[in-house]
Structures are given as C-alpha cells and as structure tokens.
C-alpha cells in the first residue's frame, strides 16, 4: 500500500496531534471509562479512586443529583428517587415494563408510550438518567486528561436493538459527548484480548453482566475482527441471580408485606451473598424481621440450584450462536469471559464443560470491555496512523416490514454484515394516492405482534397517479452503529418523498433538543453557542478534507470547476471566523454541492487504487 498513499477524506494530512479519546462501558450495574496513554489502555479512576462508577442515579433534591456509590448507598432509604439498572429501561416502551411494576420501587410514568419515572426532580426518562452517568464519566475523563474529549466509543450489548442503541446515542448527546462509534461489548472485549495476544481463529465471547447476556462468535485474523454471529438475552443477568436469591430469602423469612425499602435491603443482601459464594462455600446472614431479626445461612449448593435454570438458558444461546456461525462447538479456539457474573464458579464450570476448554479470564472481566473501547476510540480519533484493525459487525436482529394480514416480510436478515442497504419497491393501490404508511419491525418471528415495533414511517408528497402507477423506492440503510436510516424516492418522477419517522420506543429530534435546552439554565444562548461550535468544527473538517482532496486529486477537475470549488472554500473559510452558525452551515452546503461530482470521481478512482495498490505491493 505504501506506493499509493493518497490522503483520504478525513484523514489528516497535517502533522499528527494527539487527540483525547475515551472508551466508555455504560453498564447495567457499573460503568467505566478508559483511555489509551503511552500506548496502553487503562481505566480512569473516579474521585474515590475506584475503577467503577455504580450505575446508580439519585435525585436528591430539586437541584441536586447524586451518581455512583453514594447514590447506591442511599437506595435503601430513598428507593423511589434512586434509579438502579437504568440500562434495562433504555429504548423500552411503558407497556413492556408495566408488568414488572410490582417488583420495581419506582413510580412508572407513560410518556406518550415511552417509559419514564416520576422522581423528586419531576418526570425523568431513561435517556436522561443514563446521561447523568455519562456526564460523571465525562467529568472523570476530562479531569484525568486535562482537556476536552475529541470523541468517545460507547459499548452496547450486541443484542441491543435499534431503539436501545438510539437511546444510548441520545444519552451521549445529552451528556455533550461526541460519539465516534457504538461498539458491541463482546467485540470490545475481543479487541482487548486480541491486540494483547495477537490471537488468530474463532473466539466465543461469553458476556454475563448485571442485566444482559450476550454470546458472540468472532473470527480474528490479521487484524480483522469479524462478528460471525451473536445471540443472547437482553433481560438476563446477574440481577436475575440476585432476584432468585431474594425469592429464596423471602421464603425463608416468610415475610409477605414488602415495602420498597425492605425489598431493597433484600436485594443488597442477595448481591452480597452471591459475591461471597464466589469464594466461600457458605455465607451467613441476618435480616431484620419486624421487631425481631432472622438469622440464616446460604450455601453453594442452594445457590447453584437456584441459578441452574438461568445458566442453562445462556448455554442454549451459546449453542445456537455457534450453529448460526456455521461452526461446531469444538471449532471454537478460545472463550473470553466478560462481566462480573462470570466470577460465579458454576458459570465458569459449565461454560468450560460446554466448550471443552478453560475460558480466558486474565483481564478483569469488569474492565475488559472499557479497555477494548478505549483502544478502538484511540484508533477512530486518528491517533494511530496505520489502520491495522477492521471491525466488521453484524446486525443482531432481522429487520422486516409489516405486510398484509399482520405478517412480517424480512428485508435484512439477522447476522448480515453492516453497514448494509436494501431497497424495496412499493406502489400505490388507489388512484391519486399521495401518502403511504410503512411499519418497520425488528425480530425473528412471523407475526407482527410477536416482533418489536421499531418505527412507523409515513411517506408524503407522492405525485398523484393512477393506482399502481407510482413506484416508490424505499431504501433501508443500517449504519456501522447498527442504526436504521430510511430514504424514499418516487422513481418515475424522481420526487423524493418526505418521510416522517415515528419511532415506536424512541425520542424524536425535537424531544432531545428540548431535553438539552431544559437541562441548561441560559438555554437559548447556550444552544446557539453549541450550534455555532458544532458548525465551526464541521467547517474545519470540510475544509481540511477538500483541501487534501484537491492536493492529491485536483487533476481530475476541469479548470472551471476547480475555480468554483476554491471560491466556495474561501467563502467558508471566511464564514468560519464569524459568529453566525446558520451562515457557516449554508457555506458548508455550498461547498458540498460544488464538490459532489468531484467526490464521486475520487471514490471511483479510490476503489480502483485500493486494489491496484496492493498488486504493486505484492510484486
């Protein structure tokens, strides 16, 4: 490749400047932030010198919010205002969670279909609560690194659907973070191990966290991380182990009246017992019971009996993921353990039995994901000049459309490598029809009702034609983050139909903007400042990219065209110095319009060169 080093758009041609980047593991129980310093990934410690921040948010008073251990400690006496395991609620509808209401100490609120919680600070949705955790991690990072972060990589379970990914990204935006990429947790873990040991072959990543279980089958070869298949359960984890213990404890004490507070006490005790049994064979406990107290003891065999069905579920998912990857269990070269729940001896033992080998546990299972994310953030932000890793991810669940009779027609099957784009043609069934509704679903089942509704799209502005006359080409594109984008075009007239997206379990752009505004005191001025800053950054990127393109491929252009581009560049350069965000935005658009053709030419040339360059190298 060395013979053809053309500066690609976006790859800086200026001398290298180290940019600050961080990897964030936004976990159900704990969250971590890590960065690469002097070539090594390391966890950044919080103000209490702990590597992990408890994913606990407490709304203390109208204007005070507590995050982390102190919030967790308060959970016992202020359960209603202390949100734990908020990740389970991300991208979820009110109706989906309402059936668990009895077991939750919160006042659930239906926020136009979305789940939200009534707190001392008013109604808070899971995106806002997660943003609080992210802000804390953001603070830890900027404090350690003494500067603003250029970007972050945030990890999500591979099993997360579109709504859950979008919610995570929205939370980051609310916390003022620039997301370079959402990375699947198991991929991050493999990255941490892969780069350390230079492994090649098929790797299974078994990730049992607090609230989610993921199994991913990856192929690692010469710097390429290829996700072959993923599976799991987005509602199964260590919390369920705790829940099982709570059930057992309640049986022992015979207590039926359960206040939010006592429920929380049971839960904390359950977690402590579980942790003790990872090392000891037996653990004793005392529980207050009315005016009296209850003394008991909990042993390994009882614990293992309780969780055996849950562990079995994870093993079944492992088997089917391996099958989806087109492999046999004995073809798996190594097994990586991720997540605090993999410390449970029964889990390790059964995973070892299934795969016929001892799983890898050399990197702390709580930290491995954040470390991998930091490594990837460092690459994406541009601190590593050579692109020696390539992460090819797949879409975890099939995308489909509702058809006649409440059935789903799959358009993008699960485990398809992303990014991916699929076009589907629709036609009108009435004379003069100008609008059309499309319902997008995610899941593997045949009936609409059994899948998860992703979004409803309404196409407007279809030119009136006889029935069947209009051909509307709808393109579904899933980007590298696993997020869906939809565009539509009427083919005969070329009219681009406008699309109105109604995410079934997500927030609209306006809602997010108003959340951002609402969280700031001098809202309007801040918003304008933020917009100006964003446009200035984007202008810088455009200027750099186009200048680099002109320098390397200017010969592709006619004199006339080149002059026009340079004129627009000069104009953008000038606007960028000013204070008018809107004007900068318009200037960027003009540059983009005048370079569309040029960009296409370069793309063609670049494709030819990408392969040609290699051949020259090989000779």
């Amino acid at each position, binding site marked *: 490749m060395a013979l053809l080093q053309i500066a690609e*758009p976006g790859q800086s041609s200026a001398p290298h400047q180290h940019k600050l980047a961080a990897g964030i593991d936004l976990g159900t129980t704990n969250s971590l932030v890590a960065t690469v310093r002097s070539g090594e990934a390391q966890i950044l410690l919080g103000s209490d010198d702990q590597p992990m921040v408890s994913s606990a948010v407490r709304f203390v008073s109208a204007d005070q919010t507590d995050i982390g251990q102190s919030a967790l400690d308060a959970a016992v006496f202020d359960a209603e205002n202390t949100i734990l395991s908020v990740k389970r609620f991300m991208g979820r509808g009110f109706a989906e969670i309402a059936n668990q209401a009895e077991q939750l100490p919160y006042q659930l609120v239906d926020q136009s279909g979305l789940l939200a919680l009534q707190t001392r600070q008013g109604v808070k949705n899971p995106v806002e609560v997660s943003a609080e955790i992210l802000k804390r991690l953001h603070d830890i990072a900027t404090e350690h690194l003494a500067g603003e972060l250029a970007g972050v990589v945030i990890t999500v379970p591979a099993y997360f659907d579109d709504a859950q990914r979008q919610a995570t990204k929205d939370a980051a935006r609310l916390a003022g973070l620039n997301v370079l990429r959402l990375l699947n947790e198991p991929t991050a873990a493999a990255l941490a191990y892969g780069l350390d040991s230079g492994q090649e072959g098929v790797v299974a990543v078994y990730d049992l966290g607090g609230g989610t279980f993921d199994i991913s089958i990856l192929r690692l070869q010469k710097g390429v991380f290829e996700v072959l298949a993923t599976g799991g359960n987005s509602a199964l984890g260590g919390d369920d182990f705790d829940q099982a213990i709570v059930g057992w404890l309640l049986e022992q004490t015979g207590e039926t009246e359960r206040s939010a507070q006592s429920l929380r006490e049971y839960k904390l005790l359950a977690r402590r017992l579980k942790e003790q049994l990872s090392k000891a064979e037996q653990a004793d406990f005392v529980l207050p019971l009315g005016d009296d107290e209850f003394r008991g003891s909990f042993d390994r065999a009882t614990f293992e009996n309780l969780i055996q069905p849950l562990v079995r579920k994870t093993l079944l998912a492992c088997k*089917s993921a391996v099958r989806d990857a087109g492999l046999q269990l004995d073809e798996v070269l190594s097994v990586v353990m991720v997540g605090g729940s993999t410390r449970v001896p029964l889990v390790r033992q059964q995973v070892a039995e299934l795969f016929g080998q001892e799983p890898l546990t050399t990197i702390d299972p709580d930290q491995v994901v954040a470390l991998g994310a930091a490594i990837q953030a460092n690459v994406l932000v541009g601190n590593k000049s050579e692109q020696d890793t390539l992460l*090819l991810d797949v879409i975890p669940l099939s995308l489909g459309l509702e058809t006649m009779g409440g059935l789903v027609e799959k358009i993008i099957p699960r485990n398809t*490598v992303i990014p991916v*784009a699929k076009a589907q043609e629709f036609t009108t069934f009435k004379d003069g029809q100008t609008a059309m509704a499309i319902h997008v679903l995610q899941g593997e089942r045949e009936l609409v009702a059994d899948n998860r509704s992703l979004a409803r799209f309404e196409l407007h502005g279809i030119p009136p034609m006889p029935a069947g006359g209009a051909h509307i080409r709808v393109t579904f594109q899933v*980007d590298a983050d696993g997020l869906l984008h939809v565009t539509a075009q009427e083919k005969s007239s070329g009219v681009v139909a406008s699309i109105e997206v109604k995410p079934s379990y997500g927030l609209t752009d306006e809602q997010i903007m108003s959340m951002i505004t609402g969280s700031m005191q001098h809202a309007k001025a801040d918003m304008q400042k933020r917009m100006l800053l964003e446009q200035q950054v984007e202008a810088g990127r455009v200027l750099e990219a186009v200048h680099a393109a002109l320098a390397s491929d200017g010969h592709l252009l006619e004199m006339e065209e080149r002059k026009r581009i340079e004129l627009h560049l000069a104009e953008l350069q000038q606007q960028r110095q000013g204070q008018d965000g809107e004007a900068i935005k318009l200037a960027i658009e003009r540059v983009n319009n005048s370079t569309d053709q040029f*960009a296409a030419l370069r793309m063609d040339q670049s*494709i030819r060169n990408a392969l040609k360059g290699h051949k020259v190298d090989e000779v």
Partner: protein
Amino acid sequence: MNYFELFQLPQRMELDAALLSQHYLQLQRRFHPDNFANASERDRRQSVQQAALINDAFQTLKHPLRRAEYLLQCRGIDLKHEQQSFQDPVFLMQQMELREQLAEIATAPEQTQVLQQQLEQELQQGQQQLHNELSQALEQQSETGNQQAASLLRKLKFFDKLQQELEFIEQQR
C-alpha cells in the same frame, strides 16, 4: 462498475474465493465508516453507502446461486421479476416427492433420523448435478447457454428453498 469489476475478478461463474475475500477485506479496510469517524458529515455518509455496496457485492458474489443470477443479469437476463410458469413435469414431480418427505419429517419426529439423512443426501445430489450443468451452461457465453442457465437456476432455487426448510425444521428441535 459491476461487482466483478469492483473486486477486479474475471466476469465468470468460476471464482477464486480466497481472492474475493482478500479483495473484499482490502476494500473494507479503505472504505469502512470507522476510517471516517472524524470526517465531514458528507464523507461519513458516503463511506456508509460505499461500505454497504461493498458488503452487498461480496455477499452476491460469494454465494453461487446469487452469483449465477447476478452474472445472468450482467448478460441482460433478469430473473428477479419474472413470473414465468414452470414447464418441466418430470422436475415438478420430483419436487413434489421431496416435499412430501419433508412434510413427513416435520410431522413424525420419532422415526425421522433416517428419513432426514436420506432427504439431505437426495437434496445434495440433486443440487450438485444442477450446479455442474449450470457452470457449463454459463461458460458457453452464448444465448442458448444463458437461457439454459436461467432454467437451471430456477430449478436450483426450488432445491435451495427445500434445503432452507429442512434446516429450519432441524433448528426447531
């Protein structure tokens, strides 16, 4: 630029699978959106489209049936939207018999182990033969060869469907 040109491979049915994946990875290394995380919005959008196209091209050429269909499309024969009825009674008879076997396996799980293996073998043999004929027909590079290939491809699609259904039944167990 068609998919064969994209990967710089000869426009034929026979294909060097190792070279295909090597070129695929090379292109993805260059165009994957991860290379553009810091780029301008337009460039990021473009890289997503490009990477999606490369992925689609790779999947199309990788699978023999899709490759054959694409090859015919390049030669002006589009199988996607055709509504042609099938005119081969012997073949249809054979398919019906295979389908009956499949139904038997689906409804009577006790004694299916043998049946299943038998069906698998039959499917494999049928497909193997058709595949060979398909390759030969496509190599002719003639109008008759192409028409012949199209008809073989239609038959192979029947087999493919059966194969998928059989795998689905197995997975349900």
